[in-house]
């Protein structure tokens, strides 16, 4: 049992993260996620797990059959995961939402909450049960909680790696869930086998485990899982003829076929139709900038090139090379698997070179200069895509452009609904471009505004006469003159139209470390789908460091008033510290990944390594703290020290990240990566080491281990919940990286003050005497 049960805890941690990843990916296909929807789903998972950890988990203390209950909960967890996946597949039909239709904040909130409920609550309870069971045969109190935390975190690390490199690429969600269930059932059986006790309850669990193994084995090996997957896909994609469905590391791609046309859906969003592109959009996107140049030769496309854009570019006779960066190789593999004459022409042309690399990374490392850079990402809707709309990216692009080179980007636009949020979004990006380029011309459109940025004045002066001349020079036009659908885009009236449109818009710019455009993109999405919440977003926008400081100050003031009472709040103080550390940990994790992407680029494997590094740090921190607790007398002092460390880390993190960002050149890449890994590890270490210490301190005043472990685990998750839902969507965009870290620091100062003032002689004496 001393060996088996820790393995069971590792598997519990493994299962939790795998379940979370599977469900998140499935939900994003339905919700076509932006950063807010990702945040909502994760936050729901965390808060439900916290609930399970505390309310269900505390029953572990009074349960007479703790081990059997743990196994039963594990089995229920596995079953509920399969059911949850099935529910997600039919969710769209239940809610009456069409494929490709956007869903607003509130339906995402309640539907993800209901679906995640059983899985997350059960998994939360499992942690508390693990702590209680482990303490039974390890003889430890708080140290057992610390060790369970370590094992669970290790399991989560394995889970992340296995999920990313094995389960997602090679199995569908039902198969992955089934293998997970099989693993858990085998563990349950293994835990039961050594026991000589044959109670009725144990017999029941044993029988269920054996039956479960047989059924799950049949489910997997008898292809029932695959059949369920196919059937549920057909329900989810009602009325569609699905020809391919596959997950890559980056997302889900589903291809449907309709009378010779292939529609590529990426994470549930229609992304591409071959061989018929959105012709007006593609023509305008390509020909207006290329006809603004005398002789475009070298072109760079960052995403979205295949299926029309490359084809239009190749019509220009002076083109010598097209470098096309598409991050997810699966997209192009599938375009080749379902070829059309258009895409074959594009991808087989000797002038086209495809690279499967992050666009920013390619720009940073490329020695080439280009006449035009086309960015095929249309919206800064999450931290990943926002990187292509920042001052730093525009500066990078400008460096790689020739003197008269043009940067071409598309951004959300509208001609029939011009709300404040859309104005701010466009204003922010326009101002950012103006900071870098001498000339910016915008061609407004219904759905997409086309931005042309260059240091050469030609893009501002280009008109129908000039276009006509160049068409003749290039022998490009089959008809006399240009058609109205192109000519109207060049109407001089649009320039003053756009100036008027931007009136009242923000003057702020979008930077790597302050993704404001992402905030406006989410605000715009929300304004369309949940206008009743617009006021909240407007208030969010006004938040600044003064507000945060004021909030922290008022909180401390209120706390000081509480101090005048004689009542002690030691357990609450500890919980509060763990909440704030959980919040800090989530923010650190998010910030470091975000900074890494901004500095280095989106490299899937490295994102996984960063997350693993954070978790490894957390596991090490918990282990170190657990070991230290056995040796030192004054755990409180150590706890306070960790509070100080986390606070200092919060204030120091932006300094380090900014230094890395500004001092970066290609030769420093390896060093930068190592350093960021180290930072990630240290942040995990600091946040992880507090958990066992908190349990130790809490147990001084409360003998109930299950309740303590459940409460503090829940506190950690609640902190993570706040961090998840506020961090990416609100704090980082509105306050920026520095402001966010300072806010975390201020919050930690409040918890430091609380924990220091609440430590009283009795607690100190009790700590010393037991130590």
């Amino acid at each position: 049992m001393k060996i088996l049960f820790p393995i069971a805890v590792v598997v519990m941690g493994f299962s939790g993260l795998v379940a979370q990843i599977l469900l998140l990916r499935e939900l994003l296909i339905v919700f076509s996620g932006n950063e807010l929807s990702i945040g909502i789903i994760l936050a729901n998972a965390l808060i439900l797990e916290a609930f399970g950890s505390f309310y269900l988990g505390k029953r572990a203390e009074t349960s007479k059959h703790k081990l059997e209950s743990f196994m039963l909960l594990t089995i229920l967890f596995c079953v509920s995961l399969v059911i949850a996946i099935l529910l997600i597949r039919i969710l769209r039909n239940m809610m009456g939402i069409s494929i490709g239709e956007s869903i607003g904040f509130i339906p995402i909130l309640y539907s993800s909450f209901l679906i995640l409920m059983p899985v997350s609550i059960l998994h939360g309870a499992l942690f508390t049960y693990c702590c209680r069971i482990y303490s039974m045969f390890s003889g430890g109190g708080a140290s057992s909680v610390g060790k369970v935390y370590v094992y669970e975190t290790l399991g989560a690390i394995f889970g992340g790696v296995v999920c990313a490199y094995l389960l997602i690429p090679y199995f569908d969600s039902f198969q992955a869930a089934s293998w997970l269930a099989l693993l858990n059932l085998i563990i349950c059986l293994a835990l039961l086998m050594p026991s000589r006790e044959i109670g009725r309850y144990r017999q029941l669990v044993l029988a269920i485990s054996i039956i479960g193994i047989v059924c799950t084995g049949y489910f997997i090996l008898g292809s029932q899982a695959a059949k369920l997957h196919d059937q549920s896909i057909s329900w989810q994609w009602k009325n569609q003829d699905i020809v391919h469905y596959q997950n890559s590391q980056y997302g889900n791609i589903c291809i449907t076929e309709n009378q010779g046309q292939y529609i590529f859906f990426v994470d549930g969003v229609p992304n591409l139709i071959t061989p018929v592109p959105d012709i007006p959009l593609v023509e305008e996107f390509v020909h207006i900038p290329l006809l603004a140049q005398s002789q475009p030769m070298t072109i760079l496309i960052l995403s979205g090139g295949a299926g029309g854009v490359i084809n239009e570019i190749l019509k220009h006779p002076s083109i010598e090379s097209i470098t096309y960066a598409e991050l997810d190789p699966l997209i192009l593999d599938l375009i080749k698997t379902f070829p059309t004459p258009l895409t074959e022409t594009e991808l087989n042309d000797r002038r086209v070179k495809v690279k499967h690399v992050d666009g920013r990374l390619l720009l940073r490392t490329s020695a080439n200069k280009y006449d035009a850079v086309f960015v095929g990402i249309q919206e800064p809707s999450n931290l990943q895509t926002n990187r292509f709309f920042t001052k730093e990216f525009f500066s990078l692009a400008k460096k790689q452009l020739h003197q008269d080179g043009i940067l071409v980007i598309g951004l959300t636009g509208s001609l029939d609904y011009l709300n404040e949020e859309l104005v701010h979004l466009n204003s922010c990006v326009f101002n950012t471009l103006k900071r870098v380029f001498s000339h910016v011309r915008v061609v407004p459109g219904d759905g997409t505004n086309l931005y042309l940025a260059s240091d050469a004045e030609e893009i501002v002066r280009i008109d129908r006469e000039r276009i006509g001349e160049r068409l003749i020079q290039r022998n490009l036009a089959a008809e006399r003159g240009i058609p109205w659908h192109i000519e109207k885009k060049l109407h001089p009236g649009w320039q003053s139209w756009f100036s008027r449109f931007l009136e009242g818009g923000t003057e702020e710019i979008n930077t790597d470390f302050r993704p404001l455009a992402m905030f406006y993109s989410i605000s715009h999405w929300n304004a369309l789908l949940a206008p009743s919440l617009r006021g909240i977003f407007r208030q969010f926008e006004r938040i600044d460091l003064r507000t945060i400081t004021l909030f922290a100050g008022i909180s401390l003031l209120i706390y000081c008033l509480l101090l005048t009472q004689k009542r002690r709040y030691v357990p609450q103080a500890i919980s509060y510290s763990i909440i704030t550390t959980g919040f800090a940990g989530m923010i650190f994790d998010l910030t470091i990944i975000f900074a890494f992407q901004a500095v280095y680029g989106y490299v899937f494997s490295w994102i996984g390594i960063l997350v693993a590094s954070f978790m490894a740090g957390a596991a090490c921190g918990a282990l170190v703290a657990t070991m230290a607790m056995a040796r030192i007398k004054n755990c409180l002092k150590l706890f306070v020290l960790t509070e100080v460390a986390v606070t200092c880390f919060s204030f120091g993190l932006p300094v380090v990240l900014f230094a890395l960002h500004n001092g970066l050149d290609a030769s420093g890449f390896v060093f930068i990566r190592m350093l960021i890994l180290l930072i990630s590890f240290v942040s995990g270490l600091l946040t992880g080491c507090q958990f066992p210490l908190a349990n130790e301190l809490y147990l001084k005043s409360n003998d109930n281990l299950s309740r303590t472990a459940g409460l503090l685990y829940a506190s950690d998750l609640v902190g993570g919940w706040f961090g998840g839902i506020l961090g990416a969507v609100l704090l980082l965009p509105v306050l920026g990286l520095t402001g966010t870290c300072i806010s975390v620091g201020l919050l930690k100062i409040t918890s430091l003050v609380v924990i220091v003032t609440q430590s009283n002689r009795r607690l100190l004496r009790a700590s010393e005497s037991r130590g």
Partner: protein
Amino acid sequence: MDISRRTFMEKTTTFCLKTGLSVIFLSTTSAQTFATSATAKEKKGGGVGLLFEPAYLKLHRTGELGERAETLWAAMENCELCPRSCGVNRLEGEEGFCHAPGTALIVSAFHPHFGEERPLVGDHGSGTVFLTHCNLRCVFCQNWEISHLGRGAEKSIDELAAIMLKLQDAGCHNINIVTPTHYSAHILKAVDRAAGAGLRLPIVYNTSGWERQEILEALDGVVDIYLPDFKYWESDMSAQYSSDAATYPEITRQAILEMHRQVGVAKPAYNGYMQRGVMIRHLVMPNDISGSEKIMEWIADNLPKDTYINIMAQYSPLFKAFEYPNLARRITREEYVRVVEKARDLGLENLDIQGYWWLR
């Protein structure tokens, strides 16, 4: 009749004299006012040109425009402003099929638009006002945010009138009201007030085409340019894809004939700007859902050959279109070319087409 040389000379001389006197007199009175204001507009670069008077001015002066507006407004008590005739009491705030909130007028955007048809855009744009909600509620709606979700801001009648005047001041060549059907009462009221404050631009009634004859009769003499869609030929299609609007084809045919009767063929004035006439829009849809060729045949048989037709190619599956396999793809070049060639073969000569074969 046998005209002698003498008679001819007499009549010609008389005519010239009258014309000359008219010019002399008019140039010193109202002609001068028109010229002045037109010159001002010409200097500004907008407007519709010299001597143009929109149709509604006459009705405004006699007070009939206001009366018609009141009649339509009262009709909202048992609303029959559109062929749905759902009969809700919008005056009491009830919502009908279109989901317009009672008598509230919701505007999603207004601005000089440079993307409409060329004769409407001119140099200074078509003064476009986008109204929200819609009585057709097509499953493939390209503007679903405003038509289905009703996103926009509430405006009063006076504000709508002020918007019209503002667009005129911006130099626009017309006032282009998009999706006006369920707001016809509001529009007439606003036009009446704006006319009293100096509005002189033609009204473009940018409609789905599905209009009741009774409403069109109320618009007779108000609207100068009708811009109707002609979406479907088959009632099965309109019923399936536009929320059971089975009567769409039949009613729209009658509506277009009435519109033509009122304003005739759309031909640009001397300055290239459109002042009056019917401009039909037709969106070609996949799998001939729209019955495009039949529509072209009907137009050729029932309307003059120089009827303005914009054959649009920009269909893309949006909103709920993916639920319907026949709608869940783009049109092919062949589908579009077939419609254009059919229209040409039928002798229709005033076609606005999107030539996607303009590049080699």
